[in-house]
């Protein structure tokens, strides 16, 4: 695989005068150990959970961590708050440790799969430089936020001599605005309310930053700014409701922010996206877009929703708030964006229009389908791409819809990952908009996808 073709140089040739503490390197005479630890907490009290997750993680390391990734479910908001949660973490981890993360729908690690609690991944490695970045007001001005954040990474790693570069970009996820008289529904039947909601969404996005995450726009801009990085994209979310989400950067709790973790290292690393979605023989053409190319208003020159129902052989009136979850999510569609294929689910219906989570282009579309088995096979396929690497640690961003779909069977995925990583640490978080980027494959942005970043050594 291309990403792993960068064979590490002999140890003596490795750069020594980088951002890392030189004295730390001098102690290393042979191939140094990568120390990676994953910990977690299931405590309810925010402060206790923060302390617990940090202790469980840090105690597995012999040297202080070079970075600390921290993900938690939204529950701590009601059990002491996220500032207390972070305070608990900082009671334990060394000052100045770069910390980054946020709220997620759930997570998976070496211990299991959870939709409540907190988990962290800490890594200590002498041949790695680390920088963090932040950009604010992502929903109002995604491009500016992406630029701000990328500049911090560029600046932080500009003196690094390591060639393998990685970026985790973690972005505030979508927040559903509450429509008066309707609430936060995913299916609005009324034409009048839909028309109002469509306009209100634009205003809400700009004024109160409630609406789409615009992670696709941020990701595109980040790639433009940092094209030589391998990237994994994830978004911050709550428990699938889409009401609020938080990002963590060092000791700060943020909203509507993008936070980046940049690494430059001699470790081999690679990223990969798989999704398991298959084409059906059902196709259509988008003939009218709306809401700044976020809404499919007409397909085959007809109102989008009735025409989609006809194509799927579903009766009129079949879609409801409830059936939307059980049916439409299993029929994603393959859209196009700047020549790239973008498989997405249809999360929001407004009368006759289908709302999509990213900016899309009009043109030909395939209806896809996916089953639980396909999703699990996508994980196997993904890991197969990394057969040539001896993993040291791994990070995954995965669509929360997969967690919702697989439910307790998500443990099958965890077993696959445990088989691959053996005693090495991994952390998977569930988000609402994910993807990867590498120079070779360009941007892969997809819903219902598994996105992998694996760090290790090329097998000899």
């Amino acid at each position, binding site marked *: 695989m291309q990403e792993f073709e960068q064979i590490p140089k002999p140890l003596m040739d490795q750069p020594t005068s980088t951002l890392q503490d030189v004295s730390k390197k001098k102690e290393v005479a042979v191939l140094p150990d990568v120390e990676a630890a994953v910990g977690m907490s299931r405590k309810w009290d925010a402060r206790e959970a923060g302390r617990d997750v940090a202790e469980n993680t840090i105690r597995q390391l012999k040297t202080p961590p070079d970075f600390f990734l921290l993900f938690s479910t939204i529950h701590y908001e009601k059990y002491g708050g996220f500032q207390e949660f972070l305070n608990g973490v900082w009671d334990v981890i060394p000052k100045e440790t770069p910390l980054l993360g946020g709220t997620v729908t759930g997570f998976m690690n070496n211990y299991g799969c959870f939709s409540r609690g907190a988990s962290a991944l800490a890594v200590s490695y002498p041949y790695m430089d680390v920088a963090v970045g932040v950009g604010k007001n992502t929903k109002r001005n995604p491009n500016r936020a992406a630029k701000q954040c990328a500049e911090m990474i560029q600046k932080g790693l500009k003196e690094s001599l390591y060639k393998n570069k990685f970026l985790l970009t973690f972005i505030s996820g979508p927040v559903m605005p509450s429509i008066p008289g309707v609430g936060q529904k995913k299916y609005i039947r009324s034409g009048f309310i839909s028309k109002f909601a469509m306009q209100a969404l634009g205003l809400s996005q700009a004024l109160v930053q409630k609406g789409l995450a615009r992670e696709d726009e941020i990701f595109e801009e980040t790639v433009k700014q940092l094209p030589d990085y391998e990237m994994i994209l994830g978004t911050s979310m709550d428990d699938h409701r889409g009401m609020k989400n938080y990002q963590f950067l060092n000791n700060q709790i943020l909203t509507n922010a993008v936070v980046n973790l940049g690494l430059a290292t001699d470790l081999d690393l690679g990223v990969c996206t798989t999704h398991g979605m298959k084409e059906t023989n059902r196709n259509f053409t988008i003939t009218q877009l709306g809401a700044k190319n976020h809404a499919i208003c007409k397909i085959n020159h007809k109102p989008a929703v009735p025409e989609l129902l006809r194509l799927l052989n579903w009766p009129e009136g079949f879609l409801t708030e*409830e059936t939307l979850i059980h049916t439409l999510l299993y029929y994603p569609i393959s859209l196009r964006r700047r020549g790239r294929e973008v498989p997405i689910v249809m999360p929001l219906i407004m009368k006759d229009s289908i709302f999509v989570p990213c900016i899309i282009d009009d043109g030909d579309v395939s209806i896809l389908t996916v089953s639980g088995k396909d999703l699990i096979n996508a994980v196997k396929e993904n890991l197969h791409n990394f057969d040539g690497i001896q993993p040291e640690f791994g990070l995954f961003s995965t669509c929360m819809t997969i967690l919702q*779909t697989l439910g307790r069977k*998500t443990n099958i995925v965890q077993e696959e990952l445990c088989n691959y990583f053996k005693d090495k640490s991994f952390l998977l978080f569930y988000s609402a908009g994910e993807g990867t980027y590498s120079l070779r494959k360009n941007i892969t942005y997809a819903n219902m996808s598994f996105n992998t970043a694996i760090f290790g050594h090329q097998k000899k």
Partner: protein
Amino acid sequence: MKDDPIARVLDDLLKLEDILACMVARRNMISVMPSGEGFKPEVNQIWDNIHRAMDDVFGVISAYSQIGLGEMEFRLQDYEVLFYVFPDTENALVAIVPTLANKGLLEVEMENARREILKIMNPEKKTENVVSR
């Protein structure tokens, strides 16, 4: 009841917003309930009907758990009742949730709870990973 480790597992489940009630039960008998204030109030209005239906479902569970029946669920009005059967027994972890709950997320925690309870019931038997709280 407060020192019962299984009740503590149920306490954790009941703290989740969409778990309205949970228990370890079998036909005609609730074995363990959460140690706190009991079920959430909205269940009270439908509890008698749900309880009757649950007993019928336990009839099916006792007939088929020995041959691998693992889960069952039914919907009654605006509620769903999930049964996670303890293998080879007539007992199940039961939860009542609203119909429109994010069931996938709840299933993950139901499964974790089932594994924890199994570990408590069979301490010498190796069960799947469970993180201590």
